[in-house]
């Protein structure tokens, strides 16, 4: 598409308009329920940012969303839609739990942590490998296969938790609690103001992954090849880039990043592997990546926004019982709709506004 808009409009104004539209519609939903949207926003913002413990929870959610957002974004750059972050993170939880259970008793956390990172990455990547391989070699649509793998992961994990990993005699489908060496320090251990919030040091690893992704995509040869493939598969082949390699490597990285989420949830928050701990955070990654335009800086901001929504939404449900926590899911859906599927909705009118002429469609001859 020919692009006649100034860069700041393209990169700044349009995403802003899209997200604004999503929030305006969310406001209408609140109005429809019979509550005051402005008051709701105040409650949310206070609940998420207004005091230490709330902010701690916000950061804890943000950590998850940075990981899953990066996972989706990396795949986007290579033109792939990894909708399977949910399953990859779930399986990665197994990797983390195995590391923490076997090393946690003997070693301090700072020795377990790097191994757990490797465990999370390997297990997450492994769950992305088969869909990637099938896409690369047999042309099986990766969107469908990764969806299927989410459900397969859920069945597999329930089976393992109930039949293999469960503590004997317990009713809860979960592993035993990890020993101290298998848990991550909470931020509250350093800054008491965070209260009882589960925010932990995995957030620093999340920020580290942002830097890693930025360098990978825009500063390395592999990133260049991924972007080439993402924009034009024929140009990639021409340039001697192997599609199989790019699809597989990209999905491995994406799956590994999604898997990192398990560090925050399993090793950080719960300190044990639980049934359904991913709880849809993998899917939030789609909204975060779309809103953050697949750029690490954008992803951090979008993840923070969704962190605020998740924490603020929980508080809001207390303050205004008519607005349940499910409001967040609605907002999430609307953000995906407006920032993703309808991303070009405002473009024609903006082109008119900025160039005072009709949108140009070049004849294809």
């Amino acid at each position, binding site marked *: 598409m020919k692009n006649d808009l100034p860069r700041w409009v393209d990169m700044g104004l349009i995403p802003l308009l899209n997200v604004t539209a999503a929030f305006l519609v969310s406001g209408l939903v609140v109005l429809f329920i019979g509550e005051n949207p402005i008051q709701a926003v105040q409650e949310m913002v206070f609940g998420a940012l207004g005091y230490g413990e709330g902010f701690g929870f916000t950061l804890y959610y943000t950590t998850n969303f940075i990981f899953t957002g990066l996972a989706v974004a990396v795949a986007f750059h290579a033109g792939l839609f990894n909708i399977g972050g949910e399953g990859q993170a779930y399986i990665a939880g197994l990797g983390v739990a195995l590391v923490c259970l076997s090393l946690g008793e003997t070693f301090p956390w700072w020795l377990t942590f790097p191994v757990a990172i490797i465990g999370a990455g390997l297990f997450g990547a492994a769950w992305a490998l088969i869909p990637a391989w099938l896409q690369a070699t047999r042309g*099986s649509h990766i969107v469908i296969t990764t969806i299927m793998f989410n459900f397969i992961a859920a069945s597999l994990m329930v089976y393992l938790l109930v039949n293999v990993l469960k503590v004997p005699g317990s009713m809860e489908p979960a592993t035993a609690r990890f020993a101290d060496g298998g848990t991550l320090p909470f931020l509250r251990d350093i800054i008491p103001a965070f209260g009882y919030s589960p925010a932990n040091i995995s957030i620093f690893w999340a920020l580290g992954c942002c830097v890693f992704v930025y360098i990978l995509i825009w500063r390395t040869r592999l990133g260049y090849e991924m972007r080439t493939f993402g924009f034009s598969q024929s140009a990639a082949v021409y340039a001697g880039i192997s599609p199989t390699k790019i699809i597989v490597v990209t999905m491995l990285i994406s799956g590994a990043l999604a898997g990192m989420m398990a560090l925050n949830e399993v090793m950080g928050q719960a300190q044990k592997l639980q049934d359904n701990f991913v709880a849809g955070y993998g899917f939030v990654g789609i909204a975060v990546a779309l809103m953050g335009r697949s750029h690490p800086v954008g992803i951090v901001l979008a993840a923070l926004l969704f962190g605020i929504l998740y924490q603020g939404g929980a508080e809001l449900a207390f303050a205004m019982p008519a607005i349940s926590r499910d409001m967040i899911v609605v907002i999430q859906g609307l953000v995906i709709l407006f920032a*993703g599927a309808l991303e070009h909705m405002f473009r024609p009118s903006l082109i008119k506004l900025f160039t005072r002429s009709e949108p140009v469609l070049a004849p294809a001859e």
Partner: protein
Amino acid sequence: MEDFLIKLPLLLDSMIRLSVPLLFAALAGLFSERSGIFDISLEGKMLGAAFAAAAAAAVMDSALAGLLAGILVSVALALVHGFASISQRGNQIVSGVAINFVALGLTVLLGQAWFSQGGRTPQLSPDGRFGELTLPFATQLADVPFLGVLYEGIISGHNILVYVAFLMVPLSWWVLFRTRFGLRLRAVGENPAAVDTAGVSVVWLRYRAVIVCGVLCGFAGAYLSIAQASGFTKDMTAGRGFIALAALIFAKWKPVPVMMACLLFGLLQAIPIQYPQISLPGIGIVPGQVMQALPYVLTVVLLAGFIGKATPPKAGGVPYVKER
């Protein structure tokens, strides 16, 4: 073995019950995807319809009103998908994901706001539900060996939507392969430019396809909340939209195979209910999770091209841009 035989009618009966929502949804997907609009929001549309049907049926105490409300909401969501995919030429996968979330969130949010029962809708009275029909002579014939059991125990005794669902199979086939609408719809999913140059509007055709998809998803949702159950509960579709999608792919986008796939996947859901302790020689007890995962595993295997080849409609997922 004896236990197996005694339970067999029950198994087949629950297979039918469980395959109905899959069948409605998969046929819905058939119309949409055959027209070139990929739809992973079958789940969301079903869920929206289930909620709307239960809410309307509870308020108006009428199953029919419930069904209509379900269809209405499902069509509205389908039109959102259509607007994003057809008019705005957006990414169809992204739009589908969005609709699933909006439906998941809104149903519980509104349910809580309106009924204050933790996202549930009120328990329905018999008038608010589609009750079970006893087909003529079913009780009289119940004692006839085999055929009587088949008729009384398996074919009779379902609610009207079950019969509608199975009637939809030949009807869908007829519409798709024997009517002008069907011819054009299949054509637009393969080569929209051919339809456009033949003087037929691609946009309007695809909108009609997604509306049909919405109507059928409306039936699927209503079946869940006001026929099978008697009220809406949070996330009551529980992934059925995706199993339906799997069935659609498994059936290679053809109506009669769609029914077969839905019955198969319904059977896989019914087995752990009827035979919780099923065991296979040499393997031992088969965990229920294997049955749960099997539809997805089978679909992946099919997609991988190891058993036949699933070729989706050629223009599927690609927005139509007029060019030459």
